[in-house]
């Protein structure tokens, strides 16, 4: 858009806007609302389909759609407020929209928060002239286990199909048939599958596309939308949790233009029901000889924890998950480090402050000339919304390359590096690359590292900041403290538990710790916590308690225990944050973290803690060799495993192969292939992916059977069937 300002008159009000601004936005600048249905700037170029935004423009004989018009100097626009013709046009359109729309608002989940309902009240006719049968369709149709479609309510604004075509670029939602019989559908009725499908339920301006989880679950006057931040991946999308009677009923996006632009992934949207999973722990469990784990009171549990901690002073090792809040990690660290002289902790991955000089908001990816994607883990599996930003960059004309030596990198003005893969040393590798390319201080240039944990950086900061002393490495583990479900599910942590004399596990779900913990303390989920997270941009964000947890908050019993070891830990988040902030965040007050947090600079980079989850494989396979990348899929983990309706999203057992490697081995998509290394082998169907580099093969971790690194790949011998 140009920077030249033009004068536009809207309903006799003059307004100056940059030339080319849409008339809908121009009118808003003049304080005039032009109603819209199909118009949604995030979906790309306007399509002028619904005809709700008709306006009269001086010098043009026909009414024009405000959404497709752009501001030109001297343009005089009259909206329905001042033009009878525009008002007639708009009323006519609204009447048409309502002709086949059922009058079922009282039982429609969208009722009360429905743009069509609102605009009908504001602009619509009070009566209908339609006396014939309305169109009827079979309803509701599940287009996936998470989304249902009511074709009678659909007003065919094409927002959903445009999202599918030009934002998530999955092309699965389409319109079929023609004219009045047009319907939204998926191709051949295959369930709408992908990381971002749920966004169409928010884009839909009527009650046509609705999340099945929310069906008949709440009315607008009974619910509260609590602003918080998603805690399931390192992006930290801003969300609203819809709460009714103390239960989370729905997750909605809460547009942070620098982070998520209002798009969230299906894991963030639909996985919240894990809060009410059947094996959710609400009471502490203690191992009783020969009886296994038995429920005990909180008093008993805290006493037992005290006993175990006291007996292992200086010999306690902590396995963190990277999903703790900054405050939980700080409080736990202070208890163990200051009170019990046990400094050793591990995270599932390495964390580094090396990237701090190359920080950018995620939205800068969209404006890049070149995006270099390094590492071979699919971005969408690790930090889904980043994938949307890269797609937006590509649509904007950016080159997306997988090699920093690509000539396009040297020529480009704005270069963004994204590291998505195993290795990378917590971002320090990509930071070094950024330094080599001279990206420091260059406008629009920067680098991102996609960690595996949602708050690894925040946890590492907090752990480092809570004590000034440094300890020795523990030789024999007296007590292993396992914090969180990710750590509890980690095989390396379990191996460590074998060596430890005793183990305390802090976990949301019973299944994870049944066999090996001595004491299990129920944990809270991110939607139940007040506190802060640091996302992959290095942005400090505020989590809010959207519902009360079914057990005490971690801070409560950490503070109790701390008191028994003469350590001062406040049971209040704000007080703990104040302490952390003093040391890490420049004294920022808890109340100033912000509902749409800005990207703040870091005063100092903390030390590195943590370790690699897997031994780092060689970066480049030798010619002809194939390196297997076994990635953790987006739809996996403790939360997803407990949500029935998300199971269809879990990855298929298949091996992704580059076109090069497939051709060399005469393998086509669908062929069975054998993948082997050191005597163990798995057989999977192959899928040829043209975007994959030669020498790389990919498989979801749950189908890898422990294989990784250099592997042999061959077409499976045809099975002889009798």
């Amino acid at each position, binding site marked *: 858009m140009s920077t030249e300002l033009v004068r536009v008159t809207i309903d006799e009000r003059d307004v100056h806007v940059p030339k080319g601004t849409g008339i809908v936005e121009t009118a808003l600048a003049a304080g005039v609302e032009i109603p819209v249905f199909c118009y949604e700037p995030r979906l790309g170029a*306007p*399509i*002028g*389909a*619904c*005809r*709700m935004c*008709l306006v009269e423009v001086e010098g043009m*004989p*026909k*009414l024009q*759609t405000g959404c*497709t018009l752009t501001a030109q100097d001297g343009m005089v626009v009259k909206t329905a407020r001042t033009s009878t013709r525009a008002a*007639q*046009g708009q009323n*006519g*359109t609204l*009447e*048409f*929209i309502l*002709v*086949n729309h059922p009058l079922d608002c009282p039982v429609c989940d969208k009722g009360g928060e429905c743009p069509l309902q609102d605009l009908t009240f504001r602009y619509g006719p009070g009566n209908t*002239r*339609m006396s*014939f049968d309305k*169109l*009827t369709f079979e309803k509701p149709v599940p287009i996936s286990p998470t989304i249902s479609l009511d074709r009678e309510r659909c*007003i*065919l604004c*094409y927002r959903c199909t445009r999202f599918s075509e030009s934002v998530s670029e999955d092309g699965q939602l*389409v*319109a079929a*048939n*023609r*004219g*009045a*019989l*047009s319907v939204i559908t998926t191709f051949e009725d295959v369930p709408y599958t992908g990381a971002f499908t749920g966004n169409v339920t928010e884009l839909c301006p009527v009650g046509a596309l609705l999340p099945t989880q929310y069906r008949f679950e709440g009315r607008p006057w009974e619910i509260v939308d609590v602003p918080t931040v998603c805690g399931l991946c390192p992006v930290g999308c801003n969300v609203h949790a819809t709460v009714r009677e103390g239960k989370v009923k729905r997750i909605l996006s809460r547009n942070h233009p620098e982070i998520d632009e209002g798009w969230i992934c299906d894991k963030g949207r639909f996985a919240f029901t894990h809060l009410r999973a059947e094996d959710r722990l609400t009471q502490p469990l203690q191992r009783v000889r020969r009886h296994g784990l038995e429920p005990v009171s909180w008093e008993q549990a805290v006493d037992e924890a005290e006993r175990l901690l006291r007996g292992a002073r200086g010999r306690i090792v902590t396995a963190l998950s990277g999903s703790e809040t900054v405050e939980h990690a700080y409080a736990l660290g202070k208890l163990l480090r200051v009170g019990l002289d046990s400094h050793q902790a591990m995270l599932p991955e390495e964390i580094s402050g090396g990237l701090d000089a190359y920080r950018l908001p995620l939205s800068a990816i969209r404006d890049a000339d070149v995006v270099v994607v390094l590492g071979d883990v699919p971005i969408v599996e690790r930090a889904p919304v980043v994938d949307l930003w890269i797609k937006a960059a590509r649509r904007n004309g950016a080159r997306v390359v997988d090699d920093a030596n690509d000539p396009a990198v040297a020529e480009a003005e704005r270069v963004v590096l994204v590291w998505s893969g195993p290795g990378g040393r917590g971002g320090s590798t990509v930071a070094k690359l950024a330094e080599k390319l001279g990206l420091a201080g260059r406008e629009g240039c920067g680098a991102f590292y996609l960690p595996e944990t949602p708050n690894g950086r925040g946890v590492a900061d907090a752990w480092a900041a809570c004590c000034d002393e440094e300890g020795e490495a523990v030789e024999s583990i007296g007590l292993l403290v396992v914090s969180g479900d990710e750590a509890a599910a980690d095989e390396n942590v379990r191996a460590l538990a074998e060596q430890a004399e005793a183990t305390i596990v802090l976990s949301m779900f019973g299944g994870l710790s049944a066999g090996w913990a001595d004491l299990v303390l129920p944990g809270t989920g991110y939607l139940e916590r007040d506190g802060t997270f640091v996302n992959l941009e290095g942005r400090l964000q505020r989590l809010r308690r959207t519902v009360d947890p079914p057990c005490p908050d971690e801070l409560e019993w950490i503070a109790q225990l701390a008191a028994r070891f003469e350590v001062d830990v406040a049971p209040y988040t704000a007080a703990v944050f104040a302490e952390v902030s003093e040391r890490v965040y420049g004294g920022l007050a808890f109340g100033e973290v912000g509902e749409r947090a800005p990207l703040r600079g870091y005063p100092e980079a903390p030390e590195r803690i943590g370790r690699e989850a897997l031994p780092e494989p060689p970066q480049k396979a030798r010619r002809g060799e194939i390196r297997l990348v076994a990635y953790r899929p987006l739809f996996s983990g403790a939360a997803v495993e407990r949500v029935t309706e998300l199971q269809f999203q879990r990855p298929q057992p298949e091996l992704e192969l580059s076109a090069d490697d497939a051709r060399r081995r005469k393998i086509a998509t669908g062929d069975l292939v054998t993948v082997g290394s050191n005597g163990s082998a798995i057989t999977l169907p192959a899928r040829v992916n043209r975007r994959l580099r030669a020498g790389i093969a990919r498989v979801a971790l749950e189908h890898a059977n422990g294989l990784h690194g250099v592997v042999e790949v061959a077409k499976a011998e045809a099975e002889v069937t009798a």
Partner: protein
Amino acid sequence: MAEHKVLLAGTDEHDLTQLAEYRAIGGYRGVEKARAMTPDELIDELQRATLRGRGGAGFPMGRKASLIDRKSAKPKYLVVNADESEPGAFKDREVMARAPHRLIEGCLISAHAIESRDVFIYIRGEYLTEYEILTAAVEQAREAGILGDVQITVHRGAGAYICGEETAMLESLEGKRGQPRPRPPFPPIQGLYMAPTQINNVCTIATVPVILELGAEEFAKTGVPSSPGTAIFSISGNVVRPGNYELDLGTPMRELIYEHAGGVAGGRELKAVVPGGSSVPALTPDQIDVPLDYDSLGAIGTFFGAASLIVVDDRCCMVQLALRSTKFYMHESCGKCTPCRVGTRWMVQILESIENGTATHADLDLLDNIGDNILGKVLCALGEFAVYPVASYLHKWRDEFVAHIEQGGCPFHGSSSLDGILAPSDQHAQTPVGEEALV
């Protein structure tokens, strides 16, 4: 006056589907002439000829060519609209079947004018024979080296009327669902694959070699000053000799109906003429002395359209005719914009209630008002095409509509014959599942 065959010149005496025969009557000399000119000179020549677009809108072809952004770094495309789908129109079909090389020559000249190397001819899917003739002719021209560096692709449509709308045609060519785009941007600036694109009707392009042959000045002397040249008129309905007649523009409509087409069949009375294909306002018998050209027809409130006359005799019930045409547009509405998608179906429902005698007087005003809410409010012209004819029937034959209401049914008592007047929609349409539930 006799027919004046220009587009169809030589088709009666020769087999012009054969390259050699077309060459023997001077074919492809125009393209040689054109290629000796610069694109600027050529566009200037076309502009001076003031050839108006034969697709319906009548926009001057030379001016269209001059709007192409030839400085653009993107490729320039020429798209020929051969998706002739307007009920009553069959003129392009005859040109493609009998003078395909004239169309190809026109493509090559026009491509040279806009510096295009890629020509797409988007042909109606049902025109299989014409497709085969045209592709064979393109192949002959290619083998003879006439195409030069120009690639001509003949692309078959899949049976959607909307793809005759120029921007929906571009979407369809790009492999997308055929639905119109908002304008601006207009195709000469951003058309096929977002590149500058010229779109013309078959008859427009097939006239271009004639301009080169005669010279712009000489060409402009034929027809009438505001609409030079000839046009092929498709005439159908209740006439003695339906068919295509190539006449100078400005020929009186009466002459076409009564001399060339032999008048109303069976000696019956003329009731109405729908002059531009089924989508335009109808004329009453006292209006048929109008000269057949763009401005004269415009002056009496109708359109030249696709130069396709549908002649209706006094047996016809105008409500049934309205129903037949509206059903077509309802069926062909693409479903993108609201007024057309919803309004056409609603119009059919009202027309059916009028025909079966359950409507009231208020329904006539409602029908009229729904039309007003479609006209000028739709994304493309399809919705308006549904309204124009019906509004004209309602205004000019209102007593007939009123009679339906007052007599509680059709005053023709089933005697109305729509034989030969447009095709019923179920005859030209492959009915999707559930269509019967549409109204």
